[in-house]
């Protein structure tokens, strides 16, 4: 699942933010997203978040919309994975019972 999500994030960077495909293909999961590396600015990170929210049906609260979230493609991927798992846990056990 993690690899699929990472792949999808990279696709969104190209399709939604028009990041150069060769830059993405050459980037490792540790490549920074903000400022350096992929080189997004703060507004583009918000646009990426909006795309992720629509794509995966998650919501990123303001408190978690921080620089750390965009430390790398890997960190963003981990966040989405965690958000999806949490959503799955909530939907399976809506009242918290096992």
């Amino acid at each position, binding site marked *: 699942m993690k690899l699929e999500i990472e792949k999808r994030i990279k696709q969104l960077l190209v399709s939604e933010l028009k990041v*150069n495909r060769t830059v993405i293909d050459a980037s490792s999961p540790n490549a920074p997203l903000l400022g350096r590396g992929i080189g997004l*600015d703060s*507004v583009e990170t918000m646009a990426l978040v909006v795309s992720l929210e629509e794509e995966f049906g998650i919501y990123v609260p303001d*408190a978690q919309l921080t*620089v750390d979230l965009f430390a790398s493609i890997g960190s963003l991927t981990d966040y989405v994975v965690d958000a999806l798992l949490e959503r799955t846990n909530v939907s399976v056990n809506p009242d918290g019972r096992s």
Partner: protein
Amino acid sequence: MRFQKVPAEDLGQVHAVAISRPTRAKFITLYDLYLILVCGLIKIADQWPFLRLRGVFAHAAAFAAFQLARRRRRIREQRLSQTLQFTGRQIRNIVKQSFDDFWHDMFFSLSPSGNRRAGQVRGELQGLEHVQEALEKGRGVILWESSFFGRRVAAKRILDENGLSVSQIHNEYHIGGFRNSHSWISKHLIQPFFESCEKPFVREIIYLTRSDSLAFTRVLAERLKHNGIICVSADGRGGHKIIPIDFLGRTDSFSTGMVSLAKLSGATILSLFCIQQNGGQACVIIEPPIRVDTEGDRERCLEKAVVQYASLLESYIKKYPEQYRNWHQLGELEARPHSISA
């Protein structure tokens, strides 16, 4: 077209987006004492009904500052001589005028009581049609102003007089163009003073804090979604992504965030300049829209838009060099061979 004015009780709202990390700060510094004196003088001048007396006061403050700031004068003269083809005498006059211009701005544009003074000449606004056309598209407007050129508070007053209510964006340490000592006094006394001079003329002030939060981007997008007008500095050094641009013969940095915001939201970017004309009247000039390409190489699109603004700003500075306040800090970045030319 007359625009819907924000009700008076909603004017001057202040929002701080994101929470700063707590830092240890001094209570007061020597520089704060200087600023307290400046605030006191502005407050006294605000109470004077006679504009001519206020002018004398501004001249006196400019003269004192000119005499005391020898190092800054020297650096300005040096930078001007490297940038503009003027004689030594002309350059010295420009530097002297720059002190005059600054203190006139302080004593004539800033009014902590928000007074619209009787007898004060109503400012001129050129380019209103660009704002009207942009607002008719319904995607909002981004007004790009310079942190270091022209009269920012006077500009907001003139916009307000013409029915334009803006959301003003500042970095969290903004205090009317002065350096922030980050002391307790600066945060709780000096900054609120300068804020009170601007609040009456804007819809709200949004402070971008230096925390790690990026939530402010949602706030800005929300304002534009409701066809609002946001006013932001184009040449401030904030921003997570800045690019080097050849500017006034050196390399300076400009951030790309607002270009991305325009691309993604469909908002129109308009450059705003507020100049002091001969005779003392302030004039706001809103230039035609900055062209923002949405197709093509992303980096190149961002750079092209920023270069358009830098080029405009450079032309205004060359025409009104005494109204540019950053000669002494111009080009902090080393010149790079691949930097983009304005």
